[in-house]
């Protein structure tokens, strides 16, 4: 091994007046089992304490550390330097608002998404503290969990051509969220209700199906299947709308 790593890192602090975005280079000796989490912290602690980036769990669980790693969206804490060439270029995720350097504001983007898709169980049932829980088939519970594993890292959005072009495009993550609720019997929304949310070019019909999203999803969510599933379902819903007696 004994490599010396060269990091080209995007630098821009929007709050510092009179500065422009630029790339800056840092050099570090590689150590065994080094990840980008270790490397970036070392750079900050030893070379430039103003360097901004986001880590939280450092274990691939929370989704905080999405960034462009040699051009590809990914989680920095999960990325080992030994899997990268000696020269590593780090850029903030596109689409999201830049906070500074490698840090972006995913929180606002996702909060807006929850509002658009109504990211909660829609039901008119009241919770009864004295009653036994409603039953659910375990296999179904597992299927729902499978779609709920998304960590909202934003990689799929950043990797999506449509999302980069269309500001209002919901993105694979939001469509997957809809699929999750559509699967859940506790949510009383109908296909027509979902159609209202995603039945246009900002939703399922804007997706070009090129699957940049699934390729970069660090949680390996089955985004392709969900997009296909929704497209069929929404296509049918669109047709039914024009049939007599539709509801």
């Amino acid at each position, binding site marked *: 091994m004994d490599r010396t790593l060269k990091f080209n890192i995007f630098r821009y602090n929007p709050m510092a007046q009179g500065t422009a975005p630029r790339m800056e280079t840092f050099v570090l000796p590689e150590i065994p089992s080094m990840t980008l989490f270790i490397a970036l912290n070392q750079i900050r602690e030893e070379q430039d304490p103003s360097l901004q980036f986001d880590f939280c769990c450092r274990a691939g669980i929370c989704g905080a550390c999405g960034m462009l790693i040699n051009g590809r969206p990914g989680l920095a804490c999960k990325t080992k330097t030994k899997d990268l060439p000696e020269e590593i270029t780090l850029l903030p995720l596109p689409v999201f608002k830049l906070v500074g350097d490698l840090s972006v504001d995913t929180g606002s983007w996702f909060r807006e998404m929850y509002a658009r898709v109504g990211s909660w169980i829609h039901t008119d049932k009241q919770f009864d503290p004295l009653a036994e829980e409603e039953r659910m088939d375990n296999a179904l519970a597992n299927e729902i969990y499978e779609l709920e594993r998304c960590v909202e890292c934003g990689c799929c959005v950043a990797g999506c051509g449509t999302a980069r072009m269309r500001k209002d495009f919901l993105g694979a993550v939001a469509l997957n969220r809809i699929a999750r609720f559509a699967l*859940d019997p506790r949510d009383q929304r109908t296909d027509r209700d979902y159609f209202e949310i995603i039945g246009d070019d900002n939703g399922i019909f804007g997706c070009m199906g090129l699957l940049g999203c699934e390729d970069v999803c660090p949680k390996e969510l089955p985004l392709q299947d969900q997009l296909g599933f929704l497209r069929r379902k929404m296509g049918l819903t669109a047709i039914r709308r024009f049939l007599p007696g539709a509801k």
Partner: protein
Amino acid sequence: MQTFVTDLLCIGAGLAGERVAIEAAGAGFDVICLSIVPARRSHSSAAQGGMQAALGNSAMGEGDSPDVHFMDTVKGSDWGCDQEVARIFCDNAPIAMRQMAHWGVPWNRVVAGKSFYYKGGERYEKEEKAEKEGLITARAFGGTAKWRTCYTSDGTGHTVLYTMDNRAAQLGVAVHDKTEMISLIHDGGRCLGAVARCLKTGELRVYLAKATLIAAGGFGRIYRESTNAVICDGGAHAAVLDTGVVPLGNMEAVQFHPTGIVPTYILVTEGCRGDGGTLLDVNQERFMHVYEPDKAELASRDVVSRWMMHHIREGKGVQSPYGQHLWLDIRHLGEEHIRVKLREVDEICQNFLGVDPVHSLIPVKPVQHYSMGGVRTNKDGAAYGLAGLFSAGEAACWDMHGFNRLGGNSLAETVVAGGVIGVKVVDYLRGASAQYGTAVVADRVARDQERIRRLTEGADGSEDVYKVRAAMQDALQDGVHIFRNKEGLERAVATLQEVHARAKRIGLKSDGVGANPELALALKMPGLVRLALCVAHGALMRTESRGSHAREDFPERNDRDWLTRTLATWKSEGDDLPTLDYEPATRTFEIPPGERGYGGGKIIPMDSAPKPGKEN
């Protein structure tokens, strides 16, 4: 400067903060939650294993009840907990799980019929009843008499937090993320809100509220090796301590988890052992059953961690460049179980160790994991010392965990306590009126601005904040770990006092402009060292062994002198030690102090005479 006025200000948008927020929002009050990160990245999302509630649906949970849960919790706490609080918790836990199901958590459910499970490496058969099919199921965890831990694969915290945040969004709870509270605004008797720094722009903001809740999670990052997220650094606790009037309870009670992976100290869940995983030594032999014939790997965490360190000291550890460790073996659980029910564990091993747990052993050792101590509250969640200040979740010392928390009891605490305390906060809000002394607010803001100015200009010196932090972490790691003694603790206290002096001389290396991360750390650094001193000094003074607090020089649990809770207050800026007071651990005894049934150890009974002064 922006000022926000609200009814309830929650410092923290993890499970505890959001659960309280939901209660208040549901009652029609305005709520703002602050969080360093987007709500869903809060550390609650990292919990894999599950949460305890005595539903008794699964075959191995049959006969479970809140009473049995209560017994386990009190034993687990080594009789250090408030029994009234433990009772409230156990009685409410089943309702809370069902409510989370109603809001959308995809709990794993009972599947009727025969299936296999493992215990201590052996395979057993069980049969789930047809009439329970589809109800919330449970898995085994350490220190519990029944299988009681509800879960969603190994993404329990993730699914529960996402569901909670969905509910909060539905009710219109405002979450100001990338916003860090840096000080509390109070007049010595009442809490009025907080000053926070926006981590997008670096600007200061004032939040004024009728009630303020501290739900900022744990402070594990004051240790060098911790399973906690990097944001669990104790900044909010430091701000509470800086009020000078609010005490922190039982800060010396720090939990070490048996299975942090070496070298990154990422946690692999206790569910691994609950599902039948075993601990092996350098000879790849099991050892826990030798020390704990009955519970073996499933004794409580303090006990397992201690025996692991003991075994390493006996020369049975595995050498590695990162020091000695032991092995966790889950290979016999089989590929399907590991890839599905322990999926996160599988991912963590593959990604961070380059090891496939289906075929290989996992290198583990005990590392800092949970803070039993925190902002001392009464059973209603109201903090001591300031009216209008509440606390819930890991940040609080509510105190159902005493000196050792059982696995699965913390996630459950956040949700149960959040619900119970939420109701009390709503009661308080109904009776509260807002009066804000503008002078108090202006004074607090001016002091924070002055702190920032001095740090940026290097007015007090040029100590490097990262070096100061490392010195603090090392002092705790070396002197206030699993096994403690007078000599080590005295050394740690002395070192921390020096580090405290250095922390007052920090100067920034960078310009401090915008969302500058160096400034964020520098602002809390002196307070973090004060927290560390509460831990170290509290541990030095407590001359007994109870739960996670193991004194080699005082191996007995001393109920005669120490059936107490430590209260640490930082009375004045110039102090270099906390002031310690004590109160009874519990006011009511549903179960009198007794043997835990694991962990061995001698007990000096409550009523043993004569009662000499506390020897230090």
